[in-house]
């Protein structure tokens, strides 16, 4: 198991390098630059700025300078927000984003798995239909529309929750954004769980477990859930990364102080350092998530360990 984990970590290194390289060059393909404003800067000022951020050098040199700094843990300065470097901006915004996304993730995964199991056990009976309907709503309505609807209904009409904004430490303000994030995730999880659970409940080994008189509860808990989790677990990694990226938009809609604010403005301003830094951060999170998923997978399905 440990050797397997080590192999998986090693294989992540080239993937990370390729991703960083691709991001770096694709970002430069976009027209404009960090210092193109509505009012053009004097040429000498512009030249000094470009020299300061190494933008006057050939692109390939800039790339190696960036990689060299990156290897030393330096994500570089923000080219637009004066006096802040990228790491500082991430340190300010990311904890909030991560907290919100993880909260949504944990809640949605738990609800999704439970709902999927219930729907599978009561296949084609009313609990199944009710859950499928709830899931469809979450998956079909895009998050910006869902956000607006929830804001309007629960924030403005019913006044149960604040429609937006942030007061430090107030969980109350997180209820609506977390709901918007969690609903589609829970929906997708429950659909996967329902499908795989129905499949597992029809397998020969579940029939064997029933023939042993274990009782339906133990049959489900011990014999059906673990194998049924396989497709769900393989979705959790990508699922959390959807939540993290989705939270960028949701933060914007609800006016929350996460990293989304910096990322969106940085992208518009061509603040190369911030966009790259955030992208690299997300890349590492996704790689780490996939690694964790693979390890959980190996635990769930012993056959995987030997491949």
């Amino acid at each position, binding site marked *: 198991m440990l050797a397997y984990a080590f192999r998986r970590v090693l294989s992540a290194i080239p993937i990370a390098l390729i991703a960083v390289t691709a991001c770096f060059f694709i970002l430069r393909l976009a027209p404009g630059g960090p210092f193109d404003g509505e009012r053009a800067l004097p040429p000498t000022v512009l030249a000094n700025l470009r020299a300061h951020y190494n933008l006057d050098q050939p692109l390939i040199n800039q790339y190696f300078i960036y990689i060299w700094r990156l290897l030393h843990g330096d994500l570089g300065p923000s080219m637009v927000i004066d006096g802040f470097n990228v790491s500082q901006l991430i340190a300010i915004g990311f904890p909030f984003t991560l907290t919100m996304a993880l909260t949504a993730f944990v809640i949605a995964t738990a609800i999704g798995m439970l709902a999927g199991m219930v729907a599978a056990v009561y*296949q084609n009976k009313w609990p199944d239909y009710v859950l499928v309907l709830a899931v469809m709503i979450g998956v079909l309505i895009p998050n910006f529309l869902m956000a607006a609807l929830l804001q309007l209904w629960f924030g403005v009409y019913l006044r149960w929750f604040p429609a937006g904004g942030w007061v430090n430490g107030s969980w109350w303000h997180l209820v609506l954004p977390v709901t918007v994030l969690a609903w589609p995730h829970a929906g997708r999880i429950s659909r996967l769980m329902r499908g795989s659970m129905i499949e597992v409940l029809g*397998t*020969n*080994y*579940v*029939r*064997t*477990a*029933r*023939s*042993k*008189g*274990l*009782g*339906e509860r*133990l049959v489900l808990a*011990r*014999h059906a859930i*673990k*194998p049924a989790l396989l497709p769900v677990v393989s979705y959790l990694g990508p699922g959390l990364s959807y939540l993290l990226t989705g939270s960028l938009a949701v933060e914007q809609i609800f006016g929350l102080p996460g990293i989304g604010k910096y990322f969106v403005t940085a992208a518009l301003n061509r603040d190369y350092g911030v966009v790259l830094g955030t992208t690299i951060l997300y890349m590492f999170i996704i790689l780490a998530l996939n690694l964790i998923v693979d390890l959980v997978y190996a635990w*769930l*399905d*012993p*056959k995987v360990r030997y491949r």
Partner: protein
Amino acid sequence: MSKVLEVNDLSVTFALRNSEVRAVNDLSFTLEAGETLAVVGESGSGKSQAFLSIMGLLARNGRTTGTAMMGDINLVGMRTSQLDHIRGKDIAMIFQDPMTSLNPSLRVKTQLSEVLVKHRGFDKDKATRAAVEMLERVGIPEPAKRANAYPHEMSGGMRQRVMIAMALLCQPKILIADEPTTALDVTVQAQMLDLFKSLTDDFGTSLVLITHDLGVVAGVADRMMVMYGGRAVEKGNVNELFYDPRHPYTLGLLHSTPHIAHRAARLDPIKGLPPSLEHLPKGCSFNPRCDFCFDRCLEERPPLMPLAGGREKACFYEGPLQTRKVA
């Protein structure tokens, strides 16, 4: 001898989208203590479904009527929670495909010991020790080590041994083996049958052997029940049925089996195909494929009629069977 299982008028129906299929029709038989009963028939004859229904393991759309008495307990229509005190303990089942019948994500010892934890109230350690002993008993080398293995680390024969060990942990009164050797190599098949025989003898367990392999029947069974189209068509002692079959279908089965002693140029299979259960012919279900069919068979379904020596057959034809068919 005492009866351990008495089945009366057992019927199994499956609800389809807008119709109903009868897989088993008014099946009645008894199982004596310690005996081996072979249930023989082609695919779709209802032999597996009959016993799955007794075990409460039918597919969701299946429904069972009739009675299956173990002592004074009727297994048919029993609530699952009640049935779970009986199956795995007093009546156990082994399935055809050992490759898919064990849970791939659980260690062998877990799948064995849980039976004892549930039915005998053993704690985990005691149950695991008993499980290892049972693995040794079914001939698994290094049982303590193999108990920690996952099913995919074992061969088909080994897995079927594990299945046997699992079924016999509580020394059940009845063991139902549904084509236990079909998925195995021929060399392993014989070992497996010996194992069945010796273990069920040791435990005094009655064995129901569901099979289409008459070689298997000849080797281990005491009595035999031949099924066709969801009904029993002939019952009796194995030797008598083999040497003096009274139902044309039994005869056909015997002729379809290759025999080393009189090696014919061609086998003599039963003509035609097994009937679709949705469209059983009028009269005797076997009539389209029968060489001895006459007008009464087309109109009337032959009931199971007692013969001398405790045998039974469901056929109107009274003449000699052998002479007409084979030279």
